[in-house]
């Protein structure tokens, strides 16, 4: 009870005491549930192209071809941390079990705060995509609401990664390209577990609130050669699985 600390022994400071009490009460009222000793670690996803943060609709030139990305979205979830000193995984429910819709158009959605963490060096793990067991449980809320554009109605399942745009390299109508990648199981699954190792990357939770930037280098795979070969991939299959693999491999963490 922080209030007690403010109660002064000298009764002559009545007004000051009351003012402090009021302030304390109000403070307690608003931050009553927060645990003072917890820090927040924020994971900030940063889609990049040609080494810089992605600009939607920006004409990127590669090998004489223009690529404009109009949309980048992905579903991530199941954030886990392993405390290296203790050699144990921080319980998943202490980190974040929910799914998040990361959308380049919505800056807020790029940052995912994880709270309730202890200090230490850790490995960070998360999943790109949605566990098949969950999609079999019926309709979900929040990021997994199937009306949010990350769902295949014609073949029940979540789209994990969605990238759309136009390119001079595309032979499709209006030079469009689009990659809707998904598939939670089977030989062509696009579900990927990402593990970013603390000892290499010096991921460290200090007593400060901290942001870890996770770079998604789209230019590692979204290049004119791909767009020429397959301007649109919108179903589970070998081509989509190959891109999802490249996407997973392109993820890196910037040193703090």
């Amino acid at each position, binding site marked *: 009870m922080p209030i007690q600390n403010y109660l002064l022994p000298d*009764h002559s400071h*009545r007004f000051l*005491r*009351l003012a402090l*009490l*009021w302030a304390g*009460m*109000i403070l*307690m*009222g*608003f931050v*009553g549930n927060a645990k003072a000793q917890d820090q927040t670690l924020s994971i900030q996803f940063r889609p990049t192209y040609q080494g810089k943060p992605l600009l939607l609709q920006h004409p990127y030139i590669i090998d004489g071809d223009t690529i404009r990305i109009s949309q980048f979205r992905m579903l991530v979830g199941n954030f886990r941390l392993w405390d290296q000193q203790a050699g144990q995984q921080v319980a998943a429910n202490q980190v974040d079990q929910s799914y998040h819709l990361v959308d380049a158009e919505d800056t807020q959605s790029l940052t995912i705060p994880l709270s309730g963490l202890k200090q230490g060096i850790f490995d960070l793990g998360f999943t790109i995509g949605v566990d098949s067991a969950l*999609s*079999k*449980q*019926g*309709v*979900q*809320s929040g990021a997994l*609401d*199937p*009306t*949010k*554009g990350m*769902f295949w*109605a*014609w*073949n*029940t399942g979540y789209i994990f990664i969605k990238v759309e745009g136009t390119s001079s390299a595309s032979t499709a109508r209006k030079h469009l390209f689009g990659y809707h990648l998904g598939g939670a199981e089977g030989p062509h699954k696009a579900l990927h577990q990402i593990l970013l190792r603390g000892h290499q990357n010096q991921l460290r939770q200090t007593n400060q609130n901290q942001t870890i930037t996770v770079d998604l280098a789209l230019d590692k795979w979204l290049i004119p050669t791909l767009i020429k070969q397959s301007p649109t991939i919108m179903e589970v*299959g070998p081509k989509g699985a190959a891109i999802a693999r490249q996407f997973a491999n392109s993820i890196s963490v910037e040193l703090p």
Partner: protein
Amino acid sequence: MIKSKVGFWILSLIAITCTQMGMQLSHVPRLVTKPKPMPIVVPQGWPKPTYRFRDNPPTEEGFALGKVLFYDPILSRDSSLSCASCHLSYTAFAHTDHALSHGIESRIGLRNAPTLANLAWGQRFMWDGAVHHLDFQALNPIAHPDEMDAALPQVLARLRRQPQYQTRFAQTFGDTSITGERMLKAFSQFLVQLVSANAKYDQVQRQEPGVAFTAQELNGQALFMTHCNSCHTAPLFTNNGFANNGLKPDPELKDWGRMGITRKKADSLMFKVPTLRNIALTPPYMHDGRFTSLSQVLKHYAKGIHQSPTLDPKLRNGLPLSPNEQIDLVAFLLTLTDHQFAFDKRFEAPQ
């Protein structure tokens, strides 16, 4: 001194009370009565429903909301069609007389709109089994360009603008928030209530007084059990599986059925085995509505089988049904009509 102490504690108490109230007020849900549970009654002798009611417990309010959605044309892009346009309650929620159903601007779809009944026992939905959970089913007709062709965020925005929906969503889910999840759960709450289990067949099974099969129906039943029941398994009259039943592919439609979903050759020309309940109310028949009568259907099984690699082995030589046996079999199929279901006031368009 004592006075000041008392004053201090009174003020403190007020402070605490105010702060606590202030805290609570922001969390007080809208005062709505709790929705009334509306559990599904499993007919005697039926298997356990596949729908997980604990994830979406059916209530009277949810059923009413789902029904209003089912009959509301604002779910289509140009507000011209509702789900009920192709799923009429009086014909067991099928689209009678339409081989292929038409969507907005009279666009013709690829397949025949199926009957809706006993969906709580369904495992896969659509003729190709594209949908593996009832909750997701409504997304298809709403979003499909040849059906209602609507953008889902647009549909939700329309619903949010209507006070009626704000009230109904609050009554069902506790607050006025209208999300895709809630819309789809409401649909399921309506759809799982469409239980058809009071055909003559059912009454005979239950040995109700004064109900009995005729000799022709009895013979039809015996033939059915021999030749049809392995796929159209009683009491649901479907095994919830997929089969190639020897229909020659329509060169214009180029519909390969389940292979379109699984991309497996073994699933070429496989279509979902439909229920035969209320079959007399739901012509035309087959995924493309090619047969207009049950006698045509039985002629197909007896003499019209098209051979192809994925053909169901039991149909390789056609079903050995004489013309008279076919007539008896039709007589049995007519006993699967549940008039009470088709004319159930609860399922009719809301007033």
